[in-house]
């Protein structure tokens, strides 16, 4: 008996019960579409993360205060405030004898406050950095100049505005030379940054930069940094620089055993790996939840197939009477359930791809750097899962059908 005949029989049976077939398929359609959307949105979100991290460059390392697990997030990310990074550390890291491949070092601290110019007022974020900042982050002022190390050391009240902040306060007027107030303290605008957009997960255009020591003494009342970045002369020297940085900081902090480290040094690649590991886990976890709906869909198919076997008992008896072997009946019902899941799977894939494309479209319209990723792997996986669900959940009803006694089946009312 040719498979094409079995497929034909199955299609006829399914067409005879169109709406029931469609409702049975729905579980599979939803399940497969969710798996595709989650995989694609997950990959899109990952592309966003990767693009964000790459946007601030890859040839520097970051020191976070506090110790962390080898591959885990730094404790500062978890919301713990640690005060271990101080000015002395920056000075030590700037010393070529300590870190030969380090070419620029800046600490960061930040705070929020009201920023005013005349009658204009905004709630802004100020970031305290030192004069090496433009070199560390590859950013150049568009107007005026950045502050010098002397200005930092002397707690000068100078500020470099992010593009958006300048627009909000001054619109088209000249900003350089004007005096603004940050948390009621007066600062002279000495420079304006170009429009840079979202970089490293934050909109840098809405920040203002002031000397780190000025920020500590005048606005924050602290003496530590939330992170330090060391620019490395070449990406090839990153690992070596991480080691140099660790040794320098241990000496500075009088730490003899690395277990007692009160800081964490990470390269951009480390950060990338950690974020990818976390998001991968999240992606597969969500996909697994979506896959559970496939099991529910499969149970629905098993249920409907059992109903179909019951309804068609006499037909099965007749087919056996005219010579159908048990295997023929088995294949007929298995093919039927696989058609349901496979067609459902294909519809689900199409819906999933359409939605993933929409999500990517919307994300890009919101100017996120989001790639549309629909991996052939996800599609092959979804198709295989559909077939497997059909086979697994169709097996029991099909075997029930194939084992029917032809005489009893013919008599069945």
């Amino acid at each position, binding site marked *: *008996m040719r498979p094409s*005949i079995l497929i034909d*029989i199955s299609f*006829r049976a399914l067409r*005879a019960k169109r709406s029931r077939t469609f409702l049975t398929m729905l579980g599979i359609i939803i399940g497969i579409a969710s798996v595709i959307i989650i995989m694609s949105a997950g990959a899109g979100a990952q592309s966003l993360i990767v693009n964000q991290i790459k946007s601030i460059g890859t040839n520097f390392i970051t020191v976070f205060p506090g110790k962390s697990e080898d591959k885990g997030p730094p404790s500062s990310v978890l919301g713990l405030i640690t005060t271990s990074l101080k000015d002395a550390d920056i000075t030590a890291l700037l010393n070529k004898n300590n870190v030969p491949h380090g070419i620029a070092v800046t600490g960061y601290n930040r705070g929020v406050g009201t920023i005013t110019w005349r009658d204009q007022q905004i709630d802004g974020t100020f970031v305290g950095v030192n004069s090496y900042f433009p070199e560390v982050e590859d950013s150049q002022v568009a107007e005026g100049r950045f502050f010098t190390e002397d200005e930092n050391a002397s707690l000068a009240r100078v500020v470099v505005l992010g593009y958006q902040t300048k627009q909000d306060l001054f619109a088209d007027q000249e900003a350089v030379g004007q005096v603004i107030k940050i948390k009621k303290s007066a600062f002279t605008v000495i420079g304006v940054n170009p429009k840079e957009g979202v970089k490293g997960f934050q909109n840098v255009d809405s920040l203002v930069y002031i000397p780190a020591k000025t920020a500590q003494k005048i606005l924050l009342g602290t003496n530590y940094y939330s992170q330090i970045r060391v620019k490395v002369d070449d990406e090839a020297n990153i690992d070596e620089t991480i080691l140099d940085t660790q040794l320098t900081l241990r000496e500075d902090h009088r730490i003899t055993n690395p277990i007692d480290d009160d800081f964490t040094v990470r390269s951009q690649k480390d950060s990338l790996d950690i974020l990818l590991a976390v998001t991968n886990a999240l992606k597969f976890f969500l996909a697994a939840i979506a896959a559970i709906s496939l099991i529910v869909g499969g149970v629905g198919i098993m249920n409907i197939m059992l109903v179909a076997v019951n309804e068609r008992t*006499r*037909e099965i*008896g*007749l*087919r*056996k*009477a*005219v*010579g*159908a*072997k*048990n*295997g*023929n009946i088995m294949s007929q019902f298995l093919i039927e359930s696989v058609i349901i899941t496979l067609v459902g799977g294909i519809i689900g894939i199409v819906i999933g791809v359409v939605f993933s494309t929409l999500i990517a479209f919307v994300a890009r319209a919101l100017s996120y750097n989001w790639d549309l990723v629909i991996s052939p792997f996800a599609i092959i996986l979804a198709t295989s899962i559909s077939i497997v669900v059909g086979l697994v959940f169709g097996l029991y009803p099909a075997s029930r059908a194939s084992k029917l006694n*032809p*005489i009893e089946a*013919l008599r069945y009312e």
Partner: protein
Amino acid sequence: MADLLIKLVNVGKQYESGESGTVALNDINLDIKPGEFVSIMGPSGSGKSTLMHIMGFLDKPSSGQYFYKDQDVSNFDDDKLAGIRNTEVGFVFQAFNLLQRTNVYDNVKLPLVYANKKLDKDKVEMAIKRVGLFHRINNLSNQLSGGEKQRVAIARALVNDPSIIFADEPTGNLDSKSGKQIMEILQDLNAAGKTIILVTHEQETAEHAQRIIKIRDGQIVSDEQVKERHFARQEDGLRK
């Protein structure tokens, strides 16, 4: 060709159901030659259908032996039995048992679907012509009258050119005119060489055969040739 088509030796059939179990057939010995037209008669529950199912390879005897064309088929497995059902026999049931919402052509085609041969369209059309329903070939089964349904069932039984046609109360659900047409077709087929085994509880219907086997409580009580055979052919008969 073997002298005997069917030979049953001490065939018995018990059903496990109930407290003591039912004895449906008891010690049946029976020979049927090729080309015979045999009626099996008896009251309801006497075991007629059970006997037909065993001879038609739908069921297996609990005891005794069944020789078909000299071959012992008593212990054939399901697939082998399905194979001979397909090539050697055709069934006509009281309840027609056509596929629903399926046209005449596809209903008649069914046995060929399960044959290990290429599907021969001509065979299907020939069988449909044989029962005089060629003009109805594309009608769905539920658009047919009872008599037409049973003729489709006969065409289906014929299509794979079997040695025997088993008909279990084929006229039981039909008016007398349609019933006559069915008996006429069966007699014509028998005249053309097919062995026909007809199960009925009506004397009148049974007498269309050459031989009547009467059973009661699962045992053969008489086995006689019909003296005055009925012929269903009328002047205004179906076949020209």
